[in-house]
């Protein structure tokens, strides 16, 4: 489906904002900073453009948009490697609250997230497979949590933690005040410094369970992966564009290198990968928004977006030659995001396995 006029307008706003605020120079400054994001840009993002609540219901201070618009926001962020806790707070944590929180809990937590005044992080002790979540963090009979997670996106700047922990009955989600004693957050040294990971250690901390049921990790994973796939498609398309531009400028042997057939054909192959990834990613958003389509849509999106991003990132370096391998050239910023996103929330082969598993479920039913 094509975007509606409103959606296209929304995409233009997001593209302008991030193109303006998240320049490579700015990204490099934030990569080298301690916290990894700019508080003033975050404020503008939340207050002036209102993107932090893109997909949150209006009742909680959001725009009331759906997965398609969230995808648009993420795609623009991915294009420009936006550095900030949007993915951690508005995507990961907010979806967890939306899915599992009681009405009172949503009302308590979501407006802050939507307004950007509260930064939440989702503490998962496994980032490779939802079925493995909850091995390392336990809730005791009083609902107090203990355990650790190595890799929590943007926990170092979060005031609120949403924690997946094993309770007596199931793996459930809990809200935890990050400021309390017993919560220890340690920033990690990241391969991709444009998205920070921190270690979270919980030592008998007080917590409140979100809702009564088990954590709906399957839905949450689909939502996160779909948003991530949009980020990746955004990054891949931007990197592809700059590479094609470079190839029209760079001359070797008296010809622009974009005139060499082997390189032309390679770019055609990359465009194909990108187009397929984009189509699958937009479909995943539609699937989440409407419920119609293949249950494996988010898996296909993540797998194709990841593979395309990696292919393009590798070639973006290769096609620039030695220059592409330098720190000075911006290519590696996207390459690092591509590599980090590859293992974040399931590798392509995990998602392909999941596709088949879901087809078997549909087939058996």
């Amino acid at each position, binding site marked *: *489906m*094509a975007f509606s006029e409103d959606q296209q307008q929304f995409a233009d706003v997001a593209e302008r904002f991030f193109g303006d605020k998240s320049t490579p120079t700015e990204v490099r400054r934030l990569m080298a900073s301690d916290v990894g994001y700019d508080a003033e840009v975050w404020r503008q993002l939340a207050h002036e453009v209102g993107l932090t609540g893109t997909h949150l219901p209006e009742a909680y201070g959001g725009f009331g948009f759906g997965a398609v618009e969230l995808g648009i926001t993420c795609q623009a962020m991915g294009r420009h490697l936006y550095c900030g806790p949007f993915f951690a707070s508005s995507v990961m944590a907010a979806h967890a609250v939306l899915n599992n929180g009681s009405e009172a809990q949503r009302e308590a937590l979501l407006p802050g997230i939507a307004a950007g005044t509260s930064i939440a992080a989702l503490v998962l002790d496994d980032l490779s497979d939802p079925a493995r979540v909850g091995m390392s963090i336990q809730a005791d009979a009083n609902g107090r949590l203990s355990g650790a997670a190595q890799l929590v996106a943007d926990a170092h700047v979060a005031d609120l933690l949403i924690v997946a922990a094993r309770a007596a009955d199931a793996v459930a989600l809990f809200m935890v005040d990050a400021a309390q004693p017993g919560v220890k957050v340690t920033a990690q040294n990241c391969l991709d410094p444009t998205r920070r990971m921190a270690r979270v250690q919980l030592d008998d901390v007080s917590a409140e369970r979100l809702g009564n049921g088990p954590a709906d990790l399957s839905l949450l994973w689909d939502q996160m992966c779909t948003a991530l796939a949009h980020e990746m498609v955004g990054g891949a398309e931007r990197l592809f564009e700059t590479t*094609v531009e470079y*190839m*029209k400028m760079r001359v070797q042997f008296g*010809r*622009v290198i*974009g*005139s060499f*057939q082997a390189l*032309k*054909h390679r*770019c*055609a*192959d990359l*465009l*194909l990968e990108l*187009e*397929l*990834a*984009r*189509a*699958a990613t*937009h*479909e995943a958003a539609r699937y989440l928004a409407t419920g119609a389509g*293949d249950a494996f849509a988010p898996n*296909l999106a993540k*797998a*194709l977006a990841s593979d395309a991003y990696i292919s393009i990132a590798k070639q973006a370096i290769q096609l620039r030659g030695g220059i592409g391998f330098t720190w000075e050239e911006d290519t590696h910023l996207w390459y690092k995001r591509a590599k980090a996103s590859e293992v974040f929330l399931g590798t392509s*082969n995990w998602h*392909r*396995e999941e*596709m*088949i598993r879901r*087809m*078997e479920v549909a*087939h058996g039913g």
Partner: protein
Amino acid sequence: MADDRIQEIRDEVGAWLDAHWDVRRSLGEWRELLVEEGWAAPAWPKAYFGRDYNEAEAAAVAAVFYEKGAIGAAQQGPGRLASHTLLVHGTDAQKRRYLRPILTGEHAWCQLFSEPGSGSDLAGLTTKAERVGDKWVINGQKVWNTSAHHARYGILVARTDWDVPKHQGISYFVIDMHQPGVEVRPLRQMNGHASFNEVFFSDAEVPAQDLVGSEGEGWTIAGTTLSVERQGFSQSRDGGRARNLEGPIYDEYRQELAIALEPYTWYPQREGRVDLLFERAVANGAIDDPHVRQELAKAIGLKRAAQLAAEAAAAKRRAGQRVVPEGSVGKLAASVIARQANHVHTLISGPQALLAGPDSELGGIVAEVLLSTPAISIAGGTDEIQKNIISERVLGFPKEPRFDTGPFRDVPRNVSQTGKQEG
């Protein structure tokens, strides 16, 4: 306004069909009637058997035919190419003479473009047409000519001038296939099918009045034919409806279709039959092999993504937005998908892939897939040509350097085994 007009047309054709459609008629008789009334090709000019309808109006007519189960004009592929080309470039006499039997199905046609020496480089053709008195004398060889053995006429491109650049020396003809100088041979493929022909011309003749357009204008006119070919035939099919109805005229129609579609029976196998993969893997237990699962997911995912990309492009086009020429991207995707499907079918079959024929997997369908997918990345423009198109027209990279811009006589051609030029 537009809706009123469409309803008016629906009413008119509905009433006409109610009055005339009769499954006991012969197919020929029925089609003559359609041509007389302009229903056979309502989008064609009134002067030539049509009604000057626009696309939406013609679609409305087709819809009513579909609803009533009525059969339309003959749909032989090459005939469709010929008629569209003649409508644009033909003389009044050519249109009067050739179009009607195409619509009625009386005459099948064939397309005589490709040559052994000019595959991707169609304009490098070397079949000669020499003017002798009021005739053109044709010598040379064509290849990949679907249905040539059934065809009454062919649309032919041949070289009439060797001293100008290659695209300028080509002319376009209608040729009568029923003459001594034309020999049609079946061309067998590696999968055992012989869905194409080779056609040999030895002093075959074309009357002067069967030159289409002007001498040397052939390349431009062939462009019209090829653009019709690229649009595909999907819209012109009957959606399977008339094929499944009962009545004498349907029997005749099914016979006609069987002949027309025979060359295409292996085309689904050429695309890799992704549709069969999951069920096959479940059926024989290969689904439990983790490696098969990975490769299967790749095949199914690529196929699904390609469908989605095509839908997205169509939606954008409808919304008036700029679209990547997704024809080429889609064609490349089809190659990737078919190759992957071949691989997964092989994995699922295991040693059973050693067998072929009716006793083998799915009655031979799988073996046919294994031997047919190599064609998808060649037929209708090789992957290499698609990548040139994508990289040059979509991505804006420079074109390949040309070495064939001088007089065609001087352009290098195939090097024979002895090091001499062929052709």
